[in-house]
């Protein structure tokens, strides 16, 4: 329950519902019978964290255990942090209200690089030293998972252990091990040594990094029996893998406030810029009947009136028709809307459009990613302009009047002509609307163009590429705005410097930890928020640490350079990535994994099985 002190504070901050807990389906246990208390921290606001599927899965999974209790923790917004610090209220978990510094496990999910200062800030708000070396006791153990763990080096000095890959199995392994060592009264070192033996556990303090005179990494050497390469964990069988039948239902509106169904993991497309498309391989599908059952359970336990079919490329799901037909049997009657947030533009048939629009019309979003065919071939986004136009035509025939188009600026080999192509393509979409005799009467069209900045990421074919300099990006953005001649097209772009910072941390090494700590100490937090982000403080932090961001962001690497994340094994073979990189520079596309296997190597993680190759799984 809330203390009077906290209640007083809650009326002084915006959206106090972020900090109270007590939501439907949140799990409260008697701490007396609990061996391992786990604080699952999302290093961003409540509204963002509560939208995250991974947290819902792991929360439910841990709370299935009688000997463990998982609670949620989010980064308090600036106003709340101020109040907490003024009143000496340490960071607490929402379910119990207990300070997380007394927990056994503190887990962070690292979804994007710009949350790193929040990780430090949350540890500090909890009353813990941010550096793992200064946390001497066995507990709390600070762990971290999520996609950024594919290159965890910039956070290496702060986190006790990282969990590359999928968390369903390894989380339980860690809890079991910690429970054992707590009972034995082990030291932290003893626990970490054992933990490092588990597949999918990376203990950064057991690896020493040497550098070359030119500042590149010379070698990464393991000690204490830790493996040379840390292999990520995956779940093999999604049909029998834990999936929650309840979601915590927030009182206040969060970003994704609905039932989320996961159809499959991985992606067959191989778009060369897309880290997720490589990180989550191999493809593993769920049966339609499994998904249907999970949706029914979740809608029943939450009262949500929307189901989001969520995967990297929803329309590549081999059982999409049976799934939709099954869902529509009961969702229409229950007035439940089905949302397909991640559709590919090229295999989006009218029949499918009719099906979802018969329930309720959602917005239409396409991601051509690049403005010209040449550049789309470079990034292996195998969509032609004809396909874009015919799909848009179908959409307008079907009554849509708003189309969102996603692009990237700063892709390898990009020229100003490619940038101009974005505006031209958007213009063509507008023209298509006005030439369409079936367009909705008396309505105007809006085409929203979102042009984000490309950031080269580890484990993609572009991991060696130089990121555009801030100046180059700014010039391209300016050119894009100037190329647009119609008010029917709204263009929005990302802030330049945040993308650079994202690029620095995505491919950074351990020396960046000092920069993160310096920036955080100078007041940086919530760096993903444009209204909070402070460019000058970050520039000063790099300056004070004598580290050049350009070295990490805008430097072309050679194929034989030791990359800071080379000791992480995500199953993708380096020769495959090199080959893809070479093809990119020749503007040669690679067929999707269902047409032809390109031998990325990730199926080895799953006993040779990749569902991309099993057409129309039974």
């Amino acid at each position, binding site marked *: 329950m*809330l203390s009077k002190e906290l209640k*007083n504070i809650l*009326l002084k901050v915006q959206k*106090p*519902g972020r900090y109270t807990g*007590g939501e439907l389906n949140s799990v409260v246990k008697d701490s007396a019978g609990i061996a391992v208390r786990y604080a699952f921290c999302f290093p961003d606001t409540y509204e963002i964290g509560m939208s995250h599927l991974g947290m819902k899965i792991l929360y439910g999974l841990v709370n299935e255990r009688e000997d463990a209790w998982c609670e949620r923790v989010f980064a308090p917004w600036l106003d709340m942090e101020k109040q907490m610090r003024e009143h000496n209220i340490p960071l607490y978990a929402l379910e119990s209200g207990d300070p997380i510094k007394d927990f056994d496990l503190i887990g962070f999910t690292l979804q994007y690089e710009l949350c790193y200062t929040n990780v430090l800030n949350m540890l500090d708000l909890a009353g813990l030293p941010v550096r793992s070396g200064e946390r001497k006791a066995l507990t709390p153990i600070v762990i971290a998972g999520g996609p950024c763990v594919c290159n965890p080096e910039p956070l290496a000095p702060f986190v006790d252990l990282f969990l590359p890959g999928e968390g369903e199995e390894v989380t339980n392994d860690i809890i079991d091990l910690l429970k054992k060592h707590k009972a034995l009264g082990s030291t932290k070192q003893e626990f970490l040594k054992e933990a490092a033996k588990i597949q999918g556990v990376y203990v950064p303090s057991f690896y020493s990094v040497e550098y070359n005179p030119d500042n590149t990494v010379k070698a990464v050497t393991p000690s204490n029996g830790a493996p040379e390469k840390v292999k990520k964990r995956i779940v093999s069988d999604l049909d029998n893998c834990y999936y929650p039948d309840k979601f915590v239902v927030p009182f206040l509106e969060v970003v994704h*406030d609905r039932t989320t169904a996961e159809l499959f993991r991985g992606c067959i497309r191989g778009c060369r810029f897309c880290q997720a498309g490589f990180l989550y391989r191999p493809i593993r599908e769920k049966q339609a009947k499994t998904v249907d059952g999970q949706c029914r359970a979740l809608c029943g336990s939450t*009262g949500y009136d929307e189901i989001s079919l969520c995967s990297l490329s929803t329309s590549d799901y081999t059982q999409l028709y049976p799934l939709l037909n099954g869902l529509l049997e009961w969702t229409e009657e229950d007035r439940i809307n089905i949302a397909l947030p991640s559709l590919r533009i090229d295999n989006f048939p009218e029949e499918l459009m009719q099906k979802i629009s018969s329930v309720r019309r959602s917005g239409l979003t396409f991601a051509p990613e690049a403005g010209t065919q040449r550049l789309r071939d470079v990034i292996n986004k195998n969509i032609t302009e004809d396909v874009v136009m015919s799909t848009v035509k179908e959409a307008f025939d079907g009554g849509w009047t708003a189309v969102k188009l996603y692009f990237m600026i700063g892709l390898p080999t990009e020229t100003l002509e490619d940038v101009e192509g974005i505006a031209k393509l958007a213009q063509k979409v507008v023209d298509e609307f006005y030439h369409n005799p079936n367009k909705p009467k008396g309505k105007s069209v809006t085409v929203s163009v979102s042009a984000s900045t490309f950031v080269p990421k580890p484990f993609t074919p572009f991991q060696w590429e130089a990121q555009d300099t801030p100046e180059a990006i700014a010039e391209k953005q300016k050119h894009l705005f100037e190329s647009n001649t119609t008010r029917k097209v709204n263009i929005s772009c990302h802030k330049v410097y945040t993308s650079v910072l994202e690029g620095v941390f995505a491919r950074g090494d351990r020396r960046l930890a000092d920069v993160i700590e310096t920036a955080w100490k100078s007041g940086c937090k919530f760096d993903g928020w444009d209204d909070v982000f402070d460019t000058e403080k970050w520039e000063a932090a790099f300056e004070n640490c004598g580290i050049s961001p350009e070295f990490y962001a805008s430097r072309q690497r050679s194929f034989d350079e030791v990359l800071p994340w080379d000791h992480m094994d995500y199953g993708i073979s380096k020769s495959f990535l090199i080959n893809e990189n070479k093809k990119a520079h020749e503007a040669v596309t690679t067929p999707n994994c269902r047409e032809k296997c390109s031998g990325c190597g990730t199926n080895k993680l799953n006993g040779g099985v990749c569902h991309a190759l099993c057409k129309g799984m039974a």
Partner: protein
Amino acid sequence: MRSVRVWLEKDGRAIYTSHLDLNRCMTRAVRRAGIPLWYTEGFNPHPYLMFPLPLPLGQSSDGEPMDIRIETDMTDGEIFDALSRVMPEGFTVKAVREPWDKAGDVAMAQYLITLELADAVQAERTAAVIRSLIDGGELTAEKTGKKGRMKVVKEIKLSELIHRFELSWEGSFIKISAVLSAGSTVNLNPALMLDALCKAGGFEPVYTEIRRQKLLKSDFSDFE
């Protein structure tokens, strides 16, 4: 289709749920209860669910009326049971009845305000200050309103909106029972009155609780 008025107690952590959030939260609760809501027949159909008098954030209530329109043969008792099973923490279904009065008939509301002062001496002194401020009848508060699109600050005379005011103190606690104007046209938020009292009287409670006890019609009879 028929209308039903559900009376909900709101307490504990649930008091931090804003009015808009409450609407969504209760729509989901009714869905979980398996009670088919009637949907409006407009261009964008939405379930009919409304609160005659929104409760300000941070205040608890003995019974908030919530009006819903439903398409079912379920009896009031069955609805009571079905809803009771699915309520989130902090919400308790107190009654399910036919809506007797129209939502617009709400004219006043009765509140219980509890103030905790630093000690008994402070409480006694503050009680006297509050009493004289209320008896003086000159209490005013500033309220931001809208004039067209412009935001304007206007001064409102509170004494015209305070219809009953009883005060007692014990130890370091002061209890105030007040009947204040309430409704869609003239409404006095007790938190605003309290702020005005604190400002005018120059005191600051260490802790405050506000609880709405009931809604009244213009003749002081209960809104039902």
